[in-house]
């Protein structure tokens, strides 16, 4: 029974490491040089009854970029699972030239090389050239995608070979022969010099003794008139078809030894040993016409992609895109924290929260960094200053480059810096001044100041939480009022020379969803201005230099910033959120219901004492920023109210009755509450 001999095509498998090395070769060594690169692929006999072995390329297939001028990789020999096969890689610089490559011509060229090696006898000496392969590729290094196409050139016999008697080796051979052959193959496979020689001869003498020999011994074994089979490592697992390497082997056998009938042996393994039930033996009948050797036979061999003639495309963005890697690494840190210590940690609340940072100086820079570390991804920075030469040392987002040529705007430079630190951050910088009460404006500037007010108002509306990190008291007034009006989470950090205040503002006075009587009938918590008995005025014009500039102990800002961020995280995780009562550090019990610990209202610290304390201050009915009166007036009058506050230094005090209070205070000796007294000691001038 004679049938057409059909070969299972070789299949390619590309290890991730191959693309990594190709990328770094391309970037660091080759540049736009697109000349073909010699490489090695590896294959082994099939070792699984249902899965064929693939020709694999991996990092070691390519020359290392560190290797000397030569771009020729050295194959490692002696690995039984890695028979090396030479190949050539055409890596193009554009996707257009990838598609424009003349695939037919490339295949012909490789086929001609194989044919030449057959005719000269080189293929007998080094049989790996029979399986020479070819790859074309385009590496899109910006998207980490790789288009590629393998070809395994196979010389066609015309007419094609037919086969008789194809069956498992265990049935073809006698039991004694099969046993002897298994042993001989296992010996061959465990010999360091032969294990990766994929084509060989099998002779079986009349005593059923099998021997495996190199191809070059063909003439020598003729005289002994044994059974001779042509063996090869068969990567294919199919029970009725030999694998691809047999094609060029048959061409070699026919061209070199003029055989018309070839007994072939498809060597396959199981668990690393010869398996005669998986291995096949058959007899190929070749009927090529006279003189066929005069021209190079036609060749086929472009690998199909799922049955179609199309290139393959692989994406390694998941393992190569630094942005993705940074995101997954950052997420991992936070997830570990949740898994290990804080199961209730709400990472979604953090990553979806929009934070507005007013001020991008020492505090703003540090707060932004800490927020990112906690997984906050949406950060807007507002500042109208430029980066000065003195800034980079204390303001951790800037470097000297930002100071050159007059200095970048801090808001802009900070955003760029944040993106360099973590590319997935959604940061925005807004260059604008915050209008301040008691800083009168000329009538021609009035419109632009009003614009700034509206803009700030819109910004606060658009964010979920606001940090007040500017360096003057009065610049915090308008945002405090606006946050009180819209009931936004607000955190203030302020610095003295060696003392700091970090606090969260209480809920706004008009917030509708405020819990009735706020738990124990207590007041709502105060804002930054609640403990002051004077309205914010111009604090910069009459100050000496050391009071005006940021003269603080350098360690202070990072401490305060970190506390400010931790405070925000605490609010987010508290069931009452902005309405949460202020906790006081309770060193007696130490225990707390919340997984993140207590949620204080104010933290005041002093570096001179290396001390820190938690305090509570309730809202004041005469507060110039968050009192019912002020917020109601703002609601009624809107921008007009703000304009008056800006232009008339005593306006706010008049509105809130502070002027009255001050008058009476000078005539009476007031019995100050002890708690307020303490707080008065910690004056922050920033």
């Amino acid at each position: 029974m004679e049938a057409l001999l059909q070969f299972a095509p070789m299949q390619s498998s590309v290890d991730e490491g191959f693309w990594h090395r190709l990328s770094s070769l391309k970037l660091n060594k080759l540049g736009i040089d697109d000349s073909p690169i010699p490489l090695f692929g590896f294959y082994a006999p099939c070792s699984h009854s249902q899965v064929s072995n693939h020709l694999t390329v991996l990092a070691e297939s390519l020359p290392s970029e560190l290797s000397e001028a030569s771009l020729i990789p050295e194959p490692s020999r002696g690995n039984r699972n890695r028979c090396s096969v030479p190949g050539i890689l055409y890596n193009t610089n554009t996707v257009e030239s990838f598609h424009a490559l003349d695939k037919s011509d490339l295949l012909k060229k490789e086929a001609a090389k194989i044919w030449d090696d057959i005719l000269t006898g080189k293929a007998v000496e080094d049989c790996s050239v029979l399986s020479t392969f070819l790859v074309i590729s385009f590496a899109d290094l910006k998207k980490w995608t790789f288009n590629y196409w393998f070809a395994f050139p196979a010389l066609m016999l015309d007419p094609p070979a037919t086969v008789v008697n194809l069956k498992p080796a265990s049935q073809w051979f006698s039991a004694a022969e099969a046993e002897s052959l298994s042993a001989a193959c296992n010996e061959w496979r465990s010999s360091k010099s032969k294990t990766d020689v994929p084509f060989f001869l099998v002779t079986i003498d009349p005593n059923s003794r099998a021997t495996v020999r190199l191809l070059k011994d063909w003439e020598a074994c003729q005289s002994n008139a044994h059974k001779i089979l042509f063996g090869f490592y068969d990567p294919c697992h199919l029970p009725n078809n030999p694998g691809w390497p047999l094609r060029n082997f048959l061409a070699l056998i026919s061209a070199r030894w003029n055989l018309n009938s070839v007994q072939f042996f498809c060597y396959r393994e199981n668990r690393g040993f010869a398996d005669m039930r998986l291995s096949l033996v058959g007899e190929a009948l070749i009927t090529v016409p006279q003189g066929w050797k005069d021209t190079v036979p036609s060749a086929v061999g472009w690998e199909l992609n799922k049955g179609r003639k199309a290139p393959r495309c692989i994406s390694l963005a998941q393992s190569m895109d630094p942005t993705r890697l940074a995101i997954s690494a950052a997420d991992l840190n936070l997830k570990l924290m949740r898994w290990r210590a804080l199961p209730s940690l709400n990472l979604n609340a953090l990553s979806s929260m929009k934070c507005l940072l007013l001020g991008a100086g020492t505090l703003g820079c540090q707060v932004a960094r800490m927020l990112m570390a906690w997984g906050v991804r949406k950060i807007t920075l507002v500042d109208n200053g430029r980066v000065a030469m003195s800034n980079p040392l204390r303001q951790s987002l800037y470097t000297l480059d930002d100071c050159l040529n007059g200095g970048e705007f801090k808001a802009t430079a900070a955003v760029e810096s944040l993106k360099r630190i973590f590319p997935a951050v959604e940061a925005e910088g807004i260059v604008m001044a915050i209008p301040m009460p008691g800083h009168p404006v000329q009538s021609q500037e009035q419109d632009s100041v009003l614009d700034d007010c509206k803009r700030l108002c819109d910004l606060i509306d658009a964010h979920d939480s606001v940090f007040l990190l500017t360096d003057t008291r009065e610049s915090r007034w308008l945002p405090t009022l606006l946050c009180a009006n819209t009931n936004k989470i607000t955190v203030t950090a302020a610095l003295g020379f060696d003392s700091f205040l970090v606090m969260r503002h209480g809920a706004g006075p008009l917030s509708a969803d405020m819990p009735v009587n706020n738990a124990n009938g207590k007041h709502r918590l105060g804002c930054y201005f609640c403990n002051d008995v004077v309205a914010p005025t111009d604090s910069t014009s009459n100050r000496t230099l050391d009071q005006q500039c940021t003269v603080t102990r350098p360690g202070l800002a990072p401490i305060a910033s970190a506390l400010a961020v931790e405070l925000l995280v605490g609010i987010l995780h508290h069931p009452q959120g902005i309405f949460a009562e202020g906790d006081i550090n309770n060193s007696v019990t130490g225990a707390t219901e919340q997984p993140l610990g207590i949620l204080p209202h104010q933290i005041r610290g002093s570096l001179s004492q290396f001390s820190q304390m938690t305090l509570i201050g309730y809202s004041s009915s005469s507060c110039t920023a968050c009192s019912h009166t002020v917020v109601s007036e703002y609601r009624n009058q809107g921008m007009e109210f703000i304009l008056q506050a800006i232009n008339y230094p005593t306006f706010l005090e008049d509105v809130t009755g502070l002027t009255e209070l001050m008058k009476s205070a000078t005539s009476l000796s007031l019995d100050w509450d002890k708690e307020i007294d303490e707080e008065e000691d910690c004056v922050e001038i920033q």
Partner: protein
Amino acid sequence: MPRVCNRRGMDLKDDAVKGIVPWDGTLSSFDFSLSAHTFSDKWKRFNPSFPAWQWITCPKQHHLVASHKVEGYLSLENMCHIKSSQSLQEQESDRSLTWKEESNISQREEPFDKATLVCPEHEVNHYDFHIVYSASYRVPVLYFRSYRSDGQLLPFNEIEKDLPGHSAKLRSESKWTFITHEEHPYLNRPWYKLHPCGTSDWMKLLFHSDSSLNKNGFVIEQYLISWFSVIGQVVGLKIPLEMLDTVVSNDS
């Protein structure tokens, strides 16, 4: 510095075995390689239908600690998971979107060839497993990756479909067996791993709950076998019972 390392590496183990200091569930890198060899020998003996675990030696990478010890890890590569034909069809439709057939090549560039077998292959997912020692946790860590036959790596949601049902249960119930995507310490490419932060704790429990394990010398040698009997389940690799049995029989 090296003295301190040696102390950590050797003395602790001895102390633990003698019962002077309660054993903390960790092992030194020296003991790791010792235990790894025991593990791969036993695996070969009792699990012959699977590929063998190979010890891969690596050049020393941690420059902080001067040491002449050879580092390495255990590797089991190319485990095949053959997909059912149904999911193969799903993939076909997924992938057909990526490339249109280049019709121009079919006639012009390549002659039709009757000798080429046209036969769809099974879709196979290949798995590689590495057991790497973590110097910071002082425990073994299982790294793994999966790829299609052409080399395309599988994302975790694809891998999950291959994992046995009890893996998801194990991972959701135990907070010590979560899977993360991190850089492989020797290959410097991201692999999946079972995070080691709880390993020493449950190893300690495992040993203490079974007094037969907790006898001289055997603790360390059998470490990897016991460890893998738990960890392997998460990725669907079962350990033959005989491997565990010999722990007891050798002991008695």
